[in-house]
């Protein structure tokens, strides 16, 4: 390996790492607010890529079916809860938020799927279609067990991933997709070609990280999320509803997943089940950040991307093994630096 190859690998790695950064931040965001390790995060990113590809080839995306199934299930659960509580006045609101709003983009899709859309429009429609998925899953799967232990939530989360990837197969089929490049611009710096795609990924990731930071630091909604993450009871006493904060976190997470899906679609071939592995790699980054620190998470994810890129060059079949084995020294380091909160009380 010479310096030029190393530079190319690093560039590649940074681009992949930037996508992991987005996903890892989504993990940390959802975990800190809701205590849920949202394993299906990667699946949502993969579904985004598949939706985008379907729109490109002017097919009807399976996402519509998926969102419809989820929206109907969530609405049914919400209505059931409302009927049991006999607070009928909440019915219109529930119908609007759980049925109409999530299905709105899907309805639009019914009109546009045959038409040729330009790239930005495709992306906007795709993201709008994907956005409701995580909040709906939250309502259906996690809300009923919001009081459960982190471990139980994690088990449910992993089971949910398998349910989703099964649904992915039904709604999207087994074929892998790769979307058109977002740009064919490219520059050469110091003899190293840098693709516009990579630059776009890094810039987009940076912008969304910045937006997330601004949201958290300068909006009341962001402060409410922070408060919930730090102390749920305290936040509740201040009039912040943890369930609502959870929905916002999932919505943001959905957005981050959608964006990372859009960014990864042109550079990787994505199958219905690719999300899991991608998500797990991002997760390694999140663990480097101890599931709490945003800056460390970002650094960790970039590192994972670069490591993966070099590992793929050295020994392609073992690149996954290398990345996941990295977790072991990381965890070892973490086990001596992270303060373990006492988990009291038996479940």
């Amino acid at each position: 390996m010479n310096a030029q190859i190393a530079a190319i690998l690093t560039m590649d790695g940074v681009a992949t790492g930037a996508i992991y950064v987005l996903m890892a931040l989504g993990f940390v965001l959802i975990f800190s607010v809701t205590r849920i390790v949202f394993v299906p995060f990667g699946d949502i990113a993969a579904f985004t890529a598949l939706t985008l590809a379907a729109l490109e080839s002017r097919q009807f995306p399976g996402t519509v079916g998926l969102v419809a199934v989820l929206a109907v299930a969530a609405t049914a659960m919400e209505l059931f809860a409302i009927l049991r509580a006999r607070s009928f006045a909440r019915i219109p609101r529930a119908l609007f938020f759980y049925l109409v709003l999530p299905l709105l983009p899907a309805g639009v899709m019914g009109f546009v799927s045959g038409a040729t859309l330009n790239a930005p429009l495709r992306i906007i429609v795709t993201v709008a279609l994907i956005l409701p998925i995580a909040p709906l899953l939250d309502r259906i799967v996690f809300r009923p067990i919001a009081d459960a232990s982190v471990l139980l939530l994690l088990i449910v989360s992993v089971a949910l991933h398998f349910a989703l990837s099964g649904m992915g197969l039904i709604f999207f089929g087994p074929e892998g997709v790769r979307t058109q490049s977002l740009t064919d611009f490219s520059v050469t710096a110091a003899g190293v070609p840098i693709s516009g795609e990579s630059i776009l990924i890094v810039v987009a990731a940076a912008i969304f990280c910045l937006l997330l930071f601004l949201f958290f630091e300068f909006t009341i909604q962001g402060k409410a999320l922070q408060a919930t993450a730090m102390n749920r009871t305290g936040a509740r006493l201040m009039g912040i509803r943890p369930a609502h904060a959870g929905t916002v976190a999932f919505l943001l997470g959905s957005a981050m997943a959608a964006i990372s899906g859009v960014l990864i679609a042109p550079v990787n071939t994505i199958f219905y089940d690719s999300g899991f592995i991608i998500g797990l790699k991002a997760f390694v980054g999140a663990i480097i950040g101890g599931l709490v620190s945003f800056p460390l998470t970002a650094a960790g994810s970039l590192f994972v991307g670069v490591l993966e890129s070099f590992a793929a060059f050295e020994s392609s079949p073992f690149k996954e093994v290398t990345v996941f084995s990295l977790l072991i020294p990381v965890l070892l380091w973490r086990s001596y630096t992270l303060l373990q909160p006492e988990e009291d009380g038996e479940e």
Partner: protein
Amino acid sequence: MSRLQTRMATAVAVTALAAAPAFLGVFSITLLNYIGIYALVALGLVLMTGIGGMVSFGQASFVGIAAYATAWTSALMGYSPWLGLLLALVMTGLVAAVIGAVTLRLGGHFLSLSTIAWGLAIYFSFGNIDGLGNYNGIASIPPISIGSHSLADSADIYYLIWGALIAAMLGTHNLLNSRVGRAIRALRGGNALVESLGINAFQVRLVTFVAAALMAAVAGWLYAHMTRFISPTPFDVHVSIDYLMMALVGGSSHLLGAVVGAALVTLMKNYIQDLLPLLAPNTSGRLEIVVFSVLFILFLQRARDGIVPYVARWLPPPRQEFPGKAEPLPRRRQPAKGTPLLKVDAAVRRFGGLVAVNEVSFELRAGEILGLIGPNGAGKSTMFNLITGALRPSGGKIVFAGRDITRAAPRHIARAGIARTFQHVKLRPRMSLLDNVLLGLYPRTSAGYVASALRLDRAEERRARHEAIKQLERVGLGARPFELAGNLPLGNQRILEIARALAADPILLLLDEPAAGLRRREKLALAELLRSLRAEGLTILLVEHDMDFVMNLVDRIVVMDFGCKIGEGAPQTVRNDPRVQEAYLGGVA
């Protein structure tokens, strides 16, 4: 259920299992074989997840390591499958020990997440190592043979599988009702208590984790020689989820849950595989995983405890045997009365900018009761935590019985003879009073894991139970030793903590607000108990807010306020000290 009934039920079950091949067809026996193998893996998960509180998403990869180890030994190298078993156990045990050593210090979900990662890493390794047949797997694995008898038939290996399962269940059952088993059961709910009892929580976790992996290894060995062909697929992460599902559906707090869960999930899978194509013809197996995951999620939402605990609720409770007489355990020699025992020298503890304990010095002499008092926030509990090692001092020195314990770990301090109770009661609410007290006896007994699983610990166990019941009786809780600790009112839970501390046969007893939540009469009884302990030579340091209680009991008092020591002396002297009065009552008018 009486012991006779339990034995009869077991005998009927074993007979039915033994007779099964005579009545059932090959298909049913094969199904039973799978159930037995899965149950063995699920049993490990019940031990580590349901009882020890560690969730593993990687159990299938342990099964895989063992299966590949034995396939390599027997199919590729041509040695006996029994040598394969040896290699399988050694390899799995080693991998589990290494993985455990790095991950088990971490909190619950970190551990679990890392199990996904290493589960995947191991799975990918199987498919990519050339010598192991890549993704094509290894075929023509020879059957196990005992002597000259080959266990190629499913009805033959059936006995080996179920024999192994029953042996594992018996061993686990014995283990759980032993000294180390109680430590495993105490793991859930945090390290602070476990370590304060002189138990090395990390080591207990590690052994539990490796034990679960070894059960998976035996299952993997049986699997390889039963199916005679292996590929990476059955060792993937989603299979690990199936194992977890078995343990949870069956009831992960109960050993039988493993078998019930394995049977139910296997049969249901079988049924759904037959049914789904009829309901949805064009999905060709795609729906299966969705239906299964959704069922699992619904199950976790609605009935987290699983089937066995649900059924067990309707059965008569197991009858417990009251501990009988036994030779008492050896006791520590208490130091001579009046000799210096504990010396706290200018101890400091800072939390960020806050100085919770500021250069506090005092001395404790053997055989006295010292009261540590002060208004709320004075730093008394922090002082306690410094002495017991729960917190490290930022400065100063603490010497106990001539030994510097300033930076010692809580379990070493506990073993040196300091026993404590907690301000916020730390008990294991789902363990009985007796078991909670027996936890305190851990450092005084020595039975290990293997001895306990084989029931070689009974003599020592009898002595320990006798000692535990003696301590329960002493504090006045001897009437119902099999009651769950969580059912006691808070005041009595504090008393139970004292019994547990006494069971450790300490030299120094640290009591953090022992009288809180007690009624007047109970307080008088407690004071009486502490006086009698002092008469036996025990040294006691107590934090208490009830001034009547303190003034009538203790020999000397140390007063703290805002992290500093402001007074020391006999109760009467301290009561008249103007600085103490100011701290408690505000400025003296």
